[in-house]
């Protein structure tokens, strides 16, 4: 056997993805994300509590209230302040997201859309007015005509028939409360 240590030649392998490791990583990341969301939610609640204390007792009572209520449960003031900071940041971001564009193109499209909507509304109102007028005219023509007594009888008969139909239908339908 040789005195010299012969170093084994390293075999370079293509790195294979470890499926178990990837799944565990994904699980941990999902958990972290869930935790972050809960922290922000609690941060919002702390902000509300602080505001409520200020309203009820005045300035300077929040820390004492926190020390009495939450510190014994293992939550430090620093942690709470961090959660409140995250909540404030989220609130600011949401209000920033709701900012509306006011550049010339956005304004032009907005104005044109409003004008088009108004035009369409006008058209619909006009259409309704025309139909209403036609209906009123036809009704008054019928009332004045010689055939009105016969038409009246027919109308009453048709309404009676409709009423009977509706009553029968209601009787046939099983009542939901009784069925339950």
């Amino acid at each position, binding site marked *: 056997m040789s005195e010299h240590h012969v170093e084994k030649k390293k075999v370079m392998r293509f790195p294979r993805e470890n499926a178990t490791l990837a799944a565990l*990583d*994904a699980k941990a*990341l*999902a958990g*972290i*994300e869930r935790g*972050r969301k809960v922290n922000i939610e609690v941060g919002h609640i702390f902000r509300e509590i602080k505001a409520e204390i200020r309203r009820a007792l005045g300035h300077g009572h929040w820390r004492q209230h926190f020390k009495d209520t939450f510190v014994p449960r293992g939550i430090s003031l620093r942690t709470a302040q961090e959660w409140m900071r995250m909540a404030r*940041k*989220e609130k600011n*971001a*949401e209000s*920033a*997201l*709701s*900012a*509306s*564009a*006011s*550049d010339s*193109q*956005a304004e*032009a*499209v*907005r*104005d*044109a*859309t409003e*004008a*088009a*909507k108004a*035009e*369409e509304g006008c*058209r*619909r109102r*006009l*259409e309704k007015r025309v139909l209403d007028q036609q209906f009123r005219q036809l009704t008054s023509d019928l009332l004045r005509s010689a055939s009105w007594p016969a038409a009246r009888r027919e109308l009453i008969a048709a309404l009676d028939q409709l009423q009977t139909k509706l009553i029968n239908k209601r009787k046939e339908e099983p009542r939901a409360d009784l069925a339950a």
Partner: protein
Amino acid sequence: MRTLLLKADYREAAAKRRGRFPHPLNVAHTIDRDTEVQTSDGRIIAVLLCAVIPSELGKPAYRLWNKVRGVPRNRTMAMGTNSLHTSTNKDGVPSPRSGVHPRVLEVSPARQGILGWKNRDGEMSRLSSEHPEMLSDTKPLIKLVDALYAHHLPAFYALQRAEVKKAPGRLWHTAFSSIYIAKNFRTAYHVDRGNLLGTMTAIMPLGKFTGGELVLPRWRIAFAYKPGDLLFFDPQQLHGNLPFKGKRISAAFYVARQRRGEA
């Protein structure tokens, strides 16, 4: 290339912004160099590559694609307007056809066109039939975009290529079936419904302009891309553009999702 890990997710607040124009205040972070953007669960949602398209490919493409004249009457959300009846018949009754109202089209300089395959039934777009040079003369550019996609996003590329192979039409041997050309189109927040789910869109701006950053409101980020840059991003994410000055064409390379009769 650096990796940007997104922590804050404003999904609900962003969803309310559909059809509204982006405002600079919507953005907390602007990306202007080579970056891979990942969500907190490790999902890649965008990759920005800067100065990867040489001007000798970009400039001829701009000249050719500048001919698009289509009016975006079918893109109500991206136009930042509502779907309204577009005309009335001679009796004054609104036509059943609705879309972007002519009044809105009048005030917008936006024009559009589709190159390649209109859908996955093998139907070629009218623009490609009328101007075949718009595709044939830009073949090297399309091939380069495809190669960059394969290099930087191999997993997405493999999926997209497998899918595009099933379709009757694709742009040569690339992973794309179509190119959407948007000229001077400042879009409001929208999602691209015509794209195959789970694939990326490669978007490339051309022309001479300032502004026009692409904003993803859900993450409060914007991509400040310029001619020569290429952005791969998930088109199912709500996105829109900030205002721009100058002449701008943006070309989006994608795989058409829709077959005839599909929703």
